[in-house]
């Protein structure tokens, strides 16, 4: 059951991110338009000026991103294929590269904010968790630790934005306002409280008595914030329902951990 949940998590993440990249572009475009980094390369390789490249590169970049999106979507089927571990790993690499590049592009676009680096941990990390489970299925402790680290990183990343360490994104405020109707001041206060709770649960999932409550909170809050994307734009399933789905890992990975915990409890209650 847990294995199925993990595979589902991977598939949904890749399918959703793939669709978003294919249809709705990606910040990878910003890397392709990094004037400082690319001008010497463009001038040396292609012999054209930056101005020419900037005016004529859109189509090629768009095609590249669409191919990247297709790669992600096709890779969504990998967890369900009856192939050997080595083949699955090899076939998953391109998708993981695209996912990593997308996350890196967001970090660059944010001006290298720490929060941006952390918050993508679960989305990017899900295929890695799956591969780890594939290759070392008996290493449940290692798996559990990896998922906890990814969950903690994501929640800390979100928390940094929610408390205002980084500028609070407008869509955090807008979603809260649209769903709750709170005033701007109340929204910011609410987000600040939520942010500190994010920090708290990121620590609590490593502390034995508190871990199940923290995981439970992560399941609920991760699910709620993912769903908020669609709830604030109910008439637009594309892209907003897809934005909800791409955040499946935010609640499903903690749920998997909770499932592991209950399984462990069940086993220990059976064993003499």
């Amino acid at each position, binding site marked *: 059951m847990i294995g199925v949940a993990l595979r589902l998590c991977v598939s949904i993440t890749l399918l959703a991110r793939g669709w978003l990249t294919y249809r709705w572009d990606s910040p990878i475009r910003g890397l392709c338009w990094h004037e400082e980094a690319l001008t010497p390369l463009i001038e040396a390789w292609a012999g054209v000026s930056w101005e020419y490249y900037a005016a004529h590169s859109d189509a090629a970049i768009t095609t590249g991103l669409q191919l990247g999106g297709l790669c992600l979507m096709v890779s969504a089927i990998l967890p369900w294929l009856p192939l050997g571990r080595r083949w699955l790993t090899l076939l998953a690499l391109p998708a993981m590269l695209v996912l990593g590049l997308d996350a890196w592009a967001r970090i660059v676009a944010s001006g290298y904010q720490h929060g941006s680096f952390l918050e993508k941990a679960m989305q990017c990390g899900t295929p890695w968790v799956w591969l780890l489970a594939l290759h070392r299925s008996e290493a449940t402790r290692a798996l559990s630790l990896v998922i906890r680290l990814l969950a903690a990183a994501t929640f800390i990343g979100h928390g940094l934005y929610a408390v205002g360490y980084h500028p609070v994104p407008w869509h955090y405020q807008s979603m809260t306002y649209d769903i709750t109707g709170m005033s*701007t001041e109340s929204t910011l206060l609410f987000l600040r409280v939520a942010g500190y709770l994010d920090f708290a649960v990121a620590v609590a999932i490593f502390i034995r008595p508190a871990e199940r409550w923290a995981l439970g909170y992560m399941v609920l809050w991760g699910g709620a914030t993912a769903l908020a994307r669609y709830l604030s734009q109910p008439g637009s399933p594309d892209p907003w329902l897809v934005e909800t789905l791409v955040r499946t890992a935010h609640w499903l990975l903690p749920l998997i951990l909770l499932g592991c915990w209950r399984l462990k409890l069940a086993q220990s209650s059976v064993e003499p």
Partner: protein
Amino acid sequence: MHFRYIVYSCCLLLGHIAAVAVEAQAAPVESSAIIEQQSEWQYRLAPKDSPAKYSAYAYDASDWESGWAGFGYGDDDDKTEVDMRGRTTRLAIRHRFELSDGEDPAQLWLAIRYDDAFELWINGKRLFAKGVSHKDGKRKVDSHEAKDWEYFSLAEYADVFTEYRNCIAILGYNVGAGSSDFTLDPKLILGTPAPGSQSRMNKFRVVWSADPTTEATIVWNQAKGKPGTVHYGTVDHLQEVAAYESSLAPQRVVDQSPMTTCMAHLTGLQADTEYFFCLKDESETSQRFKFRTAPSDPAASFTFIAGGDSRNGRKVRVDANRTVAKLRPLFVAFTGDMIVTDRIDKWEAWLDDWQQTISEDGHIVPLVPHRGNHEGNPLSMYQTFGTPRDAYYAFSIGGDLFRYYALNSEIPANGAQGEWLDADLKSHHDSVTHLVAGYHKPMRPHVEGKPEGSNPFRWADSFYRYGLDLALESDSHVMKRTLPLRPDKDGEEGFSHAADDSNATVYIGEGCWGAPLRAANDGKSWTLAKGSFNGFDWMHVTPESIEIKTVRVGDPAQVEQVQSGAIFQTPKGLQLWEPEGGTVLVVPADK
């Protein structure tokens, strides 16, 4: 050989003693190239002869190799790969050139990308070194990455050049023979310094965020020393600061290290009046600038420019800025994404490039800044331009002729901003002839792959309810014009054409001031025209209408200056967009 070594060492020592610390400067206003980028140079690894010899015009370099700049290895950024790794740390290049009549050596600049250091020699004389020094017989080379072009004025070395035959030699140094890369990529250009670039006070801008008929904020960077004082008045006293009627020290000084941003908010000004000002600090007086306050007469007419997204693409944005200087609008509404990443070095570059909007006679066009998504710091507008903290505001020109709303699509459009907008529109819509709003994110982008602007779309109802006439949008890096529209939330496209509806709004945009272009491939049924080119919108406001021309950025040197008696007449050399529906889009007054 021993004697030559002594002479060479002495030259180096003298050069070291004579050399002053040389810093790269802001990119000049380039007029032409003496030695173009990627030109052919002669080059030699670690030549035995001294630079004093091989930088002489008559030197016999027949045994030198020839190659195209830039030279080096590693980084995949070199036109001519040089096999020097593990062999030597020095590469010499030389190029002979002539200066014609009219080419003033005082206007020569060395533009260079280098990794790690170099010495510049002209006609046998060492001008300066960058990143390399010699002391006690030892050479020290500092590590330096060849990222951007760096510019060095050669004005103080003008005497070294001869009227016709000259030779430039550059000795490039690598930090170590085993270094992973090396770059030496020069060009020699003629240019003039960007306005204010060499001063202790620079990066000047005049900002309108309050009543432009009676107020203006003078903003500048105080590069060194204590902040200067603005001396201003209605009479031109050039740089005689004591003669100006008024003076004002900055009320706000913002530490944006390495910039120190100073803001002096002038109040009590007369409407439709030319004001002259200069700044003086402890040791320097700036050039004299001038700007015109907005008119308060409802029968007035004026022009303004709107556009956004200058992000990356410096050459095009500089060309656009120079075109602004030729068109002399009353103000520029810059609708966001001035920079690509909200870092101080990007702001410094943008502000340096903004100086190109200043005319030769010192005329500064007031700026109305807006926040875009690339201005990631919510306080950037406040800190860099002195706008209100949340970067939304409104002002009127010509009494009830024109009211402009600078909106912030990077914060919730509803909430406090939405309430303010609604209340302000409600109180002005009956009396004001032209209501115009500018903001960054388009409500319905004309590029596939850009999600609909759900945040700014929240303003659409207010726009329609109160009859906003014109909305200026950016972000997508395309150009578009729409028919007059009303919001249509049940329709697929969010809007529908509202013919003969005095409350309808025309939407134009979408941000092409230098940013990489996108395909305008998401036209709607109500799109009048769309295109993909660098440009901005140029508008003429009269009591009868707002006329809109869309300028295509070309070579600003070809554009003549707009004449004061014909402020909207297309000057010679200016390229305009000629879409279906006509070159000039007219939004008639509905009051």
